[in-house]
């Protein structure tokens, strides 16, 4: 009987060792996973995000300003064509119209 007890005690020691090794391995696996998870998240935080340029705003801005400049040129051209006759007309109205006098 003592040999049986001895054998069981030996087996239990061996069993405890097997389980301990498994637990250590499990702990290591989880630690590695946690480490890997940290890296994945850190990498995402540090990854520069590229946004596709939706519109060529520089060109659009230039077009808006250029259109305004063209309109300004057109205003100058039209105004200069009309100015002389309108000046004569306004001078006549100023001098002959009912604008005179405040007492």
């Amino acid at each position, binding site marked *: *009987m003592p*040999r*049986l007890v001895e*054998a*069981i005690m030996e*087996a*239990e020691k*061996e*069993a*405890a060792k*097997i*389980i301990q*090794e*498994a637990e250590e*391995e*499990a702990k290591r*696996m*989880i630690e590695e*996973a946690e480490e*890997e*998870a*940290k890296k*994945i*998240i850190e*990498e*995402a935080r540090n*990854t520069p*995000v590229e*946004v596709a340029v*939706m519109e060529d*705003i520089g060109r*659009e*801005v230039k077009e*808006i*300003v250029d*259109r*305004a400049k063209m*309109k*300004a040129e*057109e*205003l*100058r051209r*039209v*105004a200069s064509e*009309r*100015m002389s006759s*309108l*000046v*004569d007309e*306004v*001078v006549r*109205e*100023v*001098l002959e*119209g009912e*604008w*005179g*006098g*405040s*007492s």
Partner: protein
Amino acid sequence: MSGEEVVSVDKDSEAIVRAILKMAEDRADAIRKEAEKRAKEIIESARREAEEILRSKRERAEREMREEIARKRSAAEVEANQIVLMTKSELLSEFFRRVHEKLAAIADGQEPGWNYEEILTRYSLEGAKVLGEKEVFLMGREKDISLLEKVARKLEKEDIKASVDERTVPVIGGVVVRDSRDERRYYNTFDGRLRAYRETKEIEIIGRLFEGV
């Protein structure tokens, strides 16, 4: 102990040992599998979080870009409006500068088609009528004094006693008519007429200058 008994004990102990070890290995396998499962969950959760981080960064970057585009477009539109408004303002000033210049030329007798003496006569007569006075004084530019004296003589034909005031007024042209006590004045100057005209008709002039553009 007999030989048979020894063999029997050895067999029993072997079976017990195997059973103990088998239970331990099963337990170890279960621990490893659980750990593998947990590790996989940790990684998957991290990947989801990473995707969420990237999605959120992308959204923020896109929103910032849209805002930047809107800001630049708005600034360009403001600049465009300023270009147009400044041009209109410049041209309107030029227009009234030319009107002013022409009025000055008329007052200096440099515009054929305009008789300044006749204008002064009309304005003086109008002033005297508005004031309702039979005796008035005429004030004008220094260089108009002799013309105003002629006008005064013409007014006498209309039964109005008119004299030229020694005091002059700094105007482009025209006349200020006052009563003999200088209590009432009637301003009929080119400057005043132009100012009144501009206050009333500027919008119409802008429309006519720039219509259709």
